[in-house]
């Protein structure tokens, strides 16, 4: 019963938070629950290390009809994503502590946390999909109810895009089950079984494409990224943190957990196309980011660029590339989460997000400048900070698979400097703009600094000592690469 707690605890607390007698009580309860989940998920490392094998901490109910079964387990990749989800949920709640939000807001974050945990834990396709779609609902409300100006348009775009993506995914997953039945005669929704036998047959490429497209919308991969800039821009700060930091990882995780192991031959055959789209995402996202005038939109496009590294890492099908992708997921969650938090703090003060609204903040808000520069440098892959290790390993994987594509992807490093540093300069160094003259724009408060320091620890830690995390994901990655 170890793993059930990870999703059940926030899920059960969410209605209590909603029904809490006061906003303050709701906030406190949400804080307590998310702290408990984080501590619990870290504690799980102990039982996890004590077991052997790839998937550990198995927990399953009785097999039901049509192979439906409640079955949870984790490997290194999913455990690290659970940590990320728990960490970012707590960070989101603490970071927006002073916002006067209704009970439902805090409940939505717990529900989102529960759904994400479910996605990362479930080893049964049916339940995986239930949680996959369940995650959309709280995020839809977070954007649509508590977002900024254009929130309705963004929320509908988000739900339509990801719902259509989800339906495509459902078709593909049902197809996968059918293919398995066709090959073995047995009905099963168990992911370990479905991915043990290689799916084949004339319909396999279509099933592969449907699943790939469903996951690609979520990542998102160019050219299916269009929902992301709007959703990120209009979501409240904590919503952007969860969306970029944890939710995008669902897509990458799905590729690693389901698509590639179920279709190793097709994945290998798809390499030029898939890695090509990954490289296109890297370059396209970075170029679009260069042109943005809104800080949140800029960071949203950098997400497209950074997630491209995950794609090339995975489809390189090399252990290094896959390790890089696994690491890049965590790194992107930390760096992009941090950037969205900082922009959120800024927006809270000045109610502006335009690059040209600000300027000169390095003088009036030095801590702001320090943390923004620090997190931006981690995001653009400065070695010594976390972003570099994941990108370099993904790039190395790609180099082993396709040197010309790797050369093209490496140009992303130049473009990263071309969007990252000017945005910093314009907000912090340039002459003050209208918004930065506002007396409301003060330096970071103690609470905000505390949140950012807790992000800074893993940013430096994973930059210089990524070995424990790499060791954690190594068995999963090895078994994937050997298929």
């Amino acid at each position, binding site marked *: 019963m170890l793993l059930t707690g990870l999703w059940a605890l926030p899920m059960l607390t969410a209605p209590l938070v909603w029904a809490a007698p006061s906003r303050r009580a709701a906030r406190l309860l949400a804080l307590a629950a998310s702290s408990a989940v984080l501590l619990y998920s870290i504690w799980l490392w102990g039982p996890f290390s004590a077991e052997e094998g790839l998937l550990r901490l198995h927990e399953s109910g009785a097999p039901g009809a049509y192979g439906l079964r409640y079955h949870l387990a984790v490997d290194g990749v999913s455990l690290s994503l659970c940590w990320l989800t728990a960490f970012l949920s707590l960070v989101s709640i603490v970071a927006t502590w002073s916002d006067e939000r209704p009970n439902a807001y805090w409940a939505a974050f717990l529900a989102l946390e529960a759904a994400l945990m479910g996605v990362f834990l479930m080893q049964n396709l049916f339940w995986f999909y239930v949680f996959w779609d369940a995650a959309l609902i709280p995020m839809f409300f977070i954007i649509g109810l508590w977002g900024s100006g254009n929130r309705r348009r963004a929320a509908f775009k988000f739900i339509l895009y990801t719902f259509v993506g989800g339906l495509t995914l459902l078709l593909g997953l049902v197809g996968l089950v059918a293919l398995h039945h066709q090959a073995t005669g047995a009905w099963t929704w168990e992911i370990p079984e479905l991915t043990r036998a290689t799916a084949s047959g004339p319909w396999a490429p279509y099933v592969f494409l449907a699943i790939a497209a469903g996951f690609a919308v979520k990542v998102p991969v160019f050219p299916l990224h*269009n929902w992301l800039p709007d959703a990120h821009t209009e979501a409240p700060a904590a919503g952007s943190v969860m969306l970029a930091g944890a939710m995008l990882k669902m897509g990458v995780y799905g590729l690693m957990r389901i698509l590639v192991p179920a279709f190793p031959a097709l994945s290998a055959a798809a390499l030029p196309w898939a890695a090509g789209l990954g490289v296109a995402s890297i370059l396209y996202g970075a170029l*679009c980011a260069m042109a943005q005038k809104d800080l949140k939109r800029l960071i949203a*496009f950098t997400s497209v660029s950074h997630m491209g590294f995950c794609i090339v890492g995975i489809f390189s099908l*090399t252990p290094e590339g896959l390790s890089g992708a696994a690491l890049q997921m965590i790194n992107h969650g930390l760096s992009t989460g941090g950037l969205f938090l900082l922009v959120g703090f800024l927006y809270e003060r000045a109610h502006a997000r335009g690059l040209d609204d600000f300027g000169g903040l390095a003088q009036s808000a030095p801590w702001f400048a320090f943390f923004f520069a620090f997190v931006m440098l981690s995001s653009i892959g400065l070695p010594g900070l976390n972003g570099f290790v994941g990108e*370099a390993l993904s790039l190395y994987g790609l180099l082993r698979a396709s040197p010309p594509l790797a050369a093209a992807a490496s140009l992303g490093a130049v473009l990263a400097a*071309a969007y990252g540093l000017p945005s910093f300069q314009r907000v912090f160094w340039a002459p003050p703009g209208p918004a930065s003259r506002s007396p409301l724009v003060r330096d970071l408060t103690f609470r905000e600094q505390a949140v950012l320091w807790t992000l800074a620890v893993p940013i430096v830690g994973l930059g*210089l000592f990524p070995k424990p995390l790499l060791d954690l994901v190594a068995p999963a990655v090895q078994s994937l690469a050997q298929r």
Partner: protein
Amino acid sequence: MSPLPAAALVLLAAPLAALAFGFFVTHRVRPRTTHLPILASCAAVAAASLALLGGALGGASWSGRLFTWISAAGVQVHFGLLLDPLSVSVLSMVAVVGFLIHIYAVGYMRHDAAFSRFFLYFHLFFFAMVGLLTSDNYLQLYLFWEGVGLASFLLIGFWQHKPTARAAAWKAFLTNRVGDVGFLLAILLLFRWTGTVAFADLFSNPSLLSSQKAFIVGFLLFWGACAKSAQFPLYVWLPDAMEGPTPVSALMHAATMVTAGVFLLARSYPLLERAPGLLPFIALVGAFTAVWGAVGAFFRKDIKRILAYSTVSHLGLMTLGRGGGGVFPAVFHLIVHGFFKAALFLCAGNVIHGLHDSLGGAPTATVDDAGGLRASMPMTFAAFTLGAVSLAGVPPFGGFWSKEFVLAGAFGTPALAALGLLTALGSSLYIGRMLFLTFLGRRSWQKGHAAHAHEAPPVMWVPVLLLSLGGALAGFLAAPLARLLGVEPHHASHTVTALSIASMAAGFGLAWAAADLAPGGEPAWRSRHPALLEAVESDFGWQPFCDRAAGAVAGAARFLGDIVEGSIWDPGTEDAAAAFPALSEVLGRRARGILNDYALLMTAGAAGLAILVSLCF
């Protein structure tokens, strides 16, 4: 190789501790004292380097692993230190020169409001360079390489309110990243082809790389070095980089940053040697850059810009030296140049400081602003003269000896020899012109200005004088350095020496003629050739071309980010979304409650499903 001594750990621990203490304690509590822990750290690093140098002269070298950095299947990288003769000799120069520049900066930055922040950035620069020199593998070197780039960004843009400083900082970082891509690809290719990036593994077993692969890796490394060490075509950031405070320029041009690329190539020499045709190519690029920089320096008027182009030129000489004659000429010139270039830049700083009142606080000065400073700034004049004769290669000063070794290596190839001699002539020409115009000649600063130029305080002229003495006497370092590197230096023949002295003398003569020290106005030759001046000002069109290329990328970004995203993707998906309500409208009209219609549709649907299922199984 012996295990690491305590002194080796001091090299990294002292700057780290000083930076942490400065950032968390003094910067918050007493910002005016941030330089104290940092100077202590400089002293510790300098002492440790000299101690190690002593040991290295006795034949010792050290290496050791600190911890495992990255470990993923075929990619295993350990964090470690390698203190061999090459790193220890360059490190000693960097530590001593860096220490003196730090002391100078205390005086120079005394009145700056951001004194504390300056020292934190400054020491970060120094720390990254020390880390770079002591790295034992390419990836770790790359980490510090990027750290040097970051510190340069912060320092070039130190005066943030100036648009030119912001632009120069960005240009420097971006251009360096263009080079870094090559470096990173070289590292990844090394992993792929050899499975290691540790220097010890790579160089002890030369057969790991075929000559063709060595060429590719070597070329990419050279591309990276071209950006950091300002070789053509990637030197474009360096002339703009003097937007930062003058001590930054001194540190950047002498000890940190630009020497990193030369060091990388010296470090990679065993690899470059294996690549057929690569070393001659490198030598040619170096020789071309040397002349190119000298031409740029001769026509400029801004005193820091003259020195910046002079650095481009001398980095070209170092590159030429390594291409033609191995590691020794390059490293020797690197060390000698470090001393005299630091001295020259700091003299420029003193001139700007001394003219502060008449310049109205401008961060740089032209040769027209200066003039006749010999009397009012005697110490600076002495230091500049020593630095200048060293740079020009007047025997027996330091630059003479190192240039001899460079030219000796180049004389095998007529083209290289010609370019080398041209650079020798150019060096004395531009530095002579600068010396005459700034310190002799007319006293233009007196025109319309009540203020008088004044000598810098001792905290500023003592380090400068020491640096220029170091540069002047650096010839004595040749023999120990050769012994340290284990090479028999290739001495120049008498013909080479005679030719180089003749070029140098001719350069001074021309400089005297060109400087035209008569009071008032431009020398006649300048006003007669406006087109030529314009061409030189834009580096014969190369600078505008680079700007246009960057502008084209920005244009492409705007096209994708604004037009493609805003007018194609957004409306496209939103129209598709809007199609759903329209579809439901159409379908809704079909649903008129007529049972026959529903039955028909149901049958058709079921039939379709049955066909689909039968196709599947």
